[in-house]
């Protein structure tokens, strides 16, 4: 079971990890975009972390909604709207639940991903964050279907995201700013797919940590 505390921890950890990789993400965006992805996304998630620290909540729906609204009003780039939509759709599925079981978590993440597709209309292979989300969530779904423990399933999910992120390198961009480069976008890793990997990695790491501390404690 994933608690509101774990989701809160995830969002804080994501903010830290994205902030640490701010320059890296911005450099990736400099090559095929407008050199602001790291700055955008770090500012966005740092604001989310502040907001949820100031207004803690047990309702996952509220937590996700705060994250979504904050990203939308704090980022102002394509990614802010897309990640914002991710969390708004996730919020709709989470509702007023205060914990998520494995199936809930998968449903929440898939709804979020669908929200990105709905808004951004990217298809697989367009060299966007969707190229990381879709294979990574497919892995998660398979692993859970194979009854692997959540921590393992999330670790494999993040690993797939990492591979998928690297697999955007040979693609030609067909959405977002990078698409204007046409063939010149080939040979560069998509910044949004990279931040998606970092988000999923931080989720996996946070859930593993939470599981560890739960094992440590006598229940």
């Amino acid at each position, binding site marked *: 079971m994933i608690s509101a505390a774990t989701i809160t921890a995830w969002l804080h950890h994501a903010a830290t990890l994205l902030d640490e990789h701010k320059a890296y993400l911005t450099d990736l965006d400099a090559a095929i975009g407008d050199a*602001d992805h790291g700055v955008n996304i770090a500012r966005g998630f740092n604001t989310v972390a502040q907001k949820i620290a100031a207004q803690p909540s047990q309702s996952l729906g509220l937590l996700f909604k705060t994250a979504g609204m904050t990203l939308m009003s704090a980022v102002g780039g394509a990614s802010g*709207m897309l990640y914002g939509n991710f969390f708004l759709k996730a919020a709709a599925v989470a509702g007023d639940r205060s914990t998520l079981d494995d199936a809930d978590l998968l449903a929440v993440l898939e709804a979020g991903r669908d929200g990105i597709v709905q808004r*951004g209309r990217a298809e697989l292979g367009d060299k966007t964050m969707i190229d990381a989300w879709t294979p990574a969530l497919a892995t998660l779904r398979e692993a859970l279907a194979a009854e692997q423990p959540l921590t393992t399933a999330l670790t494999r999910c993040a690993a797939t995201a990492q591979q998928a992120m690297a697999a955007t390198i040979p693609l030609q961009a067909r*959405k977002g700013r990078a698409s*204007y480069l*046409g063939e010149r976008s080939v040979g560069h890793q998509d910044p949004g797919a990279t931040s998606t990997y970092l988000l999923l990695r931080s989720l996996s790491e946070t859930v593993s940590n939470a599981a560890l501390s739960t094992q440590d404690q006598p229940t």
Partner: protein
Amino acid sequence: MKKLINETDAVIREQMEGMALAYPDQLRISTEPKFIVRTDAPVPAKVALVSGGGSGHEPLHGGFVGMGMLDGACPGEIFTSPTPDQMYACSLAVHSGAGVLLVVKNYTGDLLSFETAAELLHGDGIPVRTVLVDDDVAVKDSLYTAGRRGVGATLLVEKIAGAAAEAGYPLHAVAELAQKVALHSRSMGMALTSCITPAAGKPTFDLGPDEIEIGIGIHGEPGQRRIPIIDADKVTTLLACEILDDPPYTRIVRSFDPETGGWVEQRLTSAPFQPGDRVIALVNSMGGTPVSELYTVYRQLAAICQQRSIHIARTLVGAYITSLDMQGCSITLTRIDDEMLRLWDAPVKTPALRWGV
């Protein structure tokens, strides 16, 4: 970096405050969230026009707020889309009951934000429509890219649709006219130099002392190609021919349907220019190019249009849609009919465009 600014974080807010002080009778601003509205908004029974986009393109859009043009504008950070909360709050401030038209330049960030804002406004029971401006012929196809960027045509859409709203056209008619102006417009730009954003403090891209960038966007995005420097007549010929020879351009435009609250996808085609067309011509400075140089460009543009029997009915020469201090220019041609010309000529009173009043 040499700029007339104070703290980098405060640039947009302070510029907005300066505008409000300079035009106390015309403009009112909100800084949290950021938007600029005309003082007499909401104007009873008038469709409200709201636009917005990244800052750094001034006078677009704030300089076009006022009688006969925009009711509100939402400035983002420099070269960064504004956010839906700005568009939402701004629209609420100017909506009089006759509905809101959101004028959206085709950049992914802008588009997604305005789409969200439209849904929020619809949720509040406000009739809302969207129009997409995508006139930059430097982008060749719409299938494998995010589509043509919105550039110079934005001014024409805002002026003509603004006049229509002022004249009492209902929401659907203002929206249709706005879309028609966008479809009838084609633009192309070039840069002599890069620009410097306050945040970066160094040129956005490197351009050699003997190079120019053709097909530049307005954010210092790389253009279509980089070529050795050529003279003004050749630059003009190059831009004008890209515009005049541009074949039919088809794209899927997603627009908001206030009846259903959903999105409708339409396949829209811009017809190419034809001999006999009447046009409005805009020769625009990217910011750092002095207006005097634009007249050399216009001189050659007029000659080319005459050769091809394109009749320039109205002309605008100046710095209207800029990229900070970038040197360079863009050309926009908009095919017009009598209605559009009448609305173009209608009175307008904004900081950057004013006539008839």
